[in-house]
């Protein structure tokens, strides 16, 4: 258990409304990530963070913003949700320790439907 909690786990929202997904970790890891997963596209990186207030864009960042004001929380915001943002969103952390511990651990996922 990597101590990652995503909320909400399931959400249905209307087109044009803002939505915020929260990722909370209990282990004080520095690196945090948001991915989306869609059929036929695998896992695609939206945004990532390498410290408090240090974030950067991934491959599919358009329409998304993030914030990290505390080590333990990484928020993903859909500014104005569109149907193309219907997806499963995974938060992940990376301990970034040397050797075999340097891997990714995922939260349980957030299923978002935009109608």
């Amino acid at each position: 258990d990597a101590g990652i909690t995503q909320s909400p786990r399931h959400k249905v929202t209307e087109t044009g409304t803002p939505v915020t997904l929260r990722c909370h970790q209990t282990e004080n890891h520095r690196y945090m990530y948001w991915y989306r997963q869609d059929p036929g596209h695998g896992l695609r990186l939206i945004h990532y963070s390498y410290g408090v207030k240090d974030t950067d864009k991934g491959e599919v960042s358009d329409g998304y913003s993030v914030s990290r004001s505390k080590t333990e929380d990484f928020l993903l915001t859909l500014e104005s949700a569109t149907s193309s943002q219907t997806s499963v969103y995974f938060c992940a952390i990376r301990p970034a320790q040397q050797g075999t511990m340097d891997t990714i651990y995922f939260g349980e996922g957030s299923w978002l439907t935009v109608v």
Partner: protein
Amino acid sequence: QQPVQSPQAVILREGEDAVINCSSSKALYSVHWYRQKHGEAPVFLMILLKGGEQKGHEKISASFNEKKQQSSLYLTASQLSYSGTYFCGTEWGSGTYKYIFGTGTRLKVLA
């Protein structure tokens, strides 16, 4: 861009072998492999840290060829529990924090 995996999908009978490949357009410094069951988050299988290194996990092993910028996952004597989608993952660029995944391979093992 992301690492490309092949094949995209494969169906096996129990006991058969499979190989999943992961090819990158950028230099790879380490490669990680994950398996995802339907409706669940991906789970880490193994990490390969050095070029040419081969590691094993029960009947699942992997190799990593730095020069060719490729990694392969070998599943031998497959079991029903091996079904799922397999992803390779890697740090995209040396010294970056950006971590991305390959395109994925769906594996189904039939009884």
